[in-house]
């Protein structure tokens, strides 16, 4: 089974040279730490920076340089700053090759829900609706089940949607799955996790074809 870092590491393997990548809050943010050697990507943060670098050294924080999670950051050489309209022009205009974000629920048709629990929690969608509506390549990074042990990979989302039919790939603590017209297709198992465990933790339609390899991470 993977921990959050493991999920980030596995997703980092998907990065391709020259890609511009938007990382959501939470697990996705960790991916920046595991970019494979020889791969050069640039990270976009939708509040207005391309070429986001690591956190600043203690004492060098700049209140005027944050990411979309409101964390203090640094800028890489060759970074650039822009306003929110330009930022979402990049996103909506499909100039960003990969979006990774968290989710509360994903359905086996690619629907995603991650911004609202009616009557309980309403943080807002932030940039997530723009990202999922436009990104050609969306990976969801999340735990396979919620705190009560219920599957987050569903036949249908129960929470208000963030986007419809948009998720392409899911990496959880248990597995890597592609979203296909027939449902979640199991691609890899996390180290030490059996197909049976994944089956039990997946409520949506699950396609298992042939031997499912263990992740190499």
């Amino acid at each position, binding site marked *: 089974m993977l921990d959050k870092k493991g999920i980030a590491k596995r997703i980092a393997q998907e990065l391709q040279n020259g890609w511009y990548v938007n990382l959501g809050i939470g697990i996705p943010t960790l991916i920046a730490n595991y970019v494979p050697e020889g791969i050069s990507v640039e990270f976009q943060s939708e*509040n207005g920076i391309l070429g986001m670098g690591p956190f600043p*050294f203690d004492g060098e924080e700049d209140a005027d340089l944050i990411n979309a999670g409101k964390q*203090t950051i640094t800028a890489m050489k060759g970074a650039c700053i822009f306003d*929110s309209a330009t930022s979402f022009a990049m*996103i*909506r205009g499909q100039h960003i090759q990969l979006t990774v974000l968290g989710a509360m629920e994903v359905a086996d048709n690619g629907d995603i829900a991650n911004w609202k629990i009616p009557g309980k929690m309403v943080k*807002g969608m932030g940039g997530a*609706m*723009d990202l999922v509506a436009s990104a050609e390549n969306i990976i969801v990074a999340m735990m396979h089940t919620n705190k009560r042990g219920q599957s987050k990979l569903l036949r249908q989302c129960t929470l208000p949607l963030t986007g419809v039919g948009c998720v392409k790939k899911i990496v959880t603590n248990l597995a890597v799955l592609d979203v296909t017209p027939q449902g979640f297709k199991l691609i890899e198992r996390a180290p030490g996790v059996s197909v049976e465990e994944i089956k039990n933790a997946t409520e949506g339609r699950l396609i298992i074809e042939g031997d499912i390899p263990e992740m190499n991470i």
Partner: protein
Amino acid sequence: MNKVVANAQEAIKGIEDNMTLMLGGFGLCGIPENCISALVKANIKGLTCISNNAGVDDFGLGLLLQKKQIKKMISSYVGENDEFERQMLSGELEVDLIPQGSLAERCRAGGAGIPAFFTPAGFGTEVGHEKEVRYFNGKPHILEHALTADFAIVKAWKGDKLGNLIFKGTARNFNPMMAMAGRITIAEVEELVEPGELDPNFIHTPGVFIQRIFQGEKYEKRIEQRTVRPRS
């Protein structure tokens, strides 16, 4: 053509109960601290505030929420604010949540004389509810309308007396678009300079969008999430 006013108190003259305001900033980054304080002091009520976030409990727009000066928030992300959540769930506060990119583009559209545009963001969700849907290249889009405000209030790093502005780092965020969309736009700046001191080639917001400008004071620039790495 001198747009300079003395201070925040003078800058917000004419803002009245029940008006619609746009306020720049992302979280606590790039917010017009001086004008927010002046609005609190002036105790103007029933405001509709268009701002990406709603501040935190004791800073930014949170200060206006505490005093219940805000009737309605139009935002994209409102976490990190217990008082906001309380007022919203109890129904005291109207909230219109908008995808961040649509919010930015709707403000720009308001300033640019584009009354409406199509975007894919929000299709098939609550946001797209009762909005016109149209397919372009086989992909569904919804029609979104421009946003404008009685007053827009933005915060810049430097500005000249003609209203030309430059921003620093990610404190730019929504400020340039909101500057465009106010019927009257107020800019508060950390440093007010003479015309000619800013390079014409590197102005972020042309002065034409600004009606009032002043040099703010005592910027706190609070950091919401101080994240650092150890020196190796």
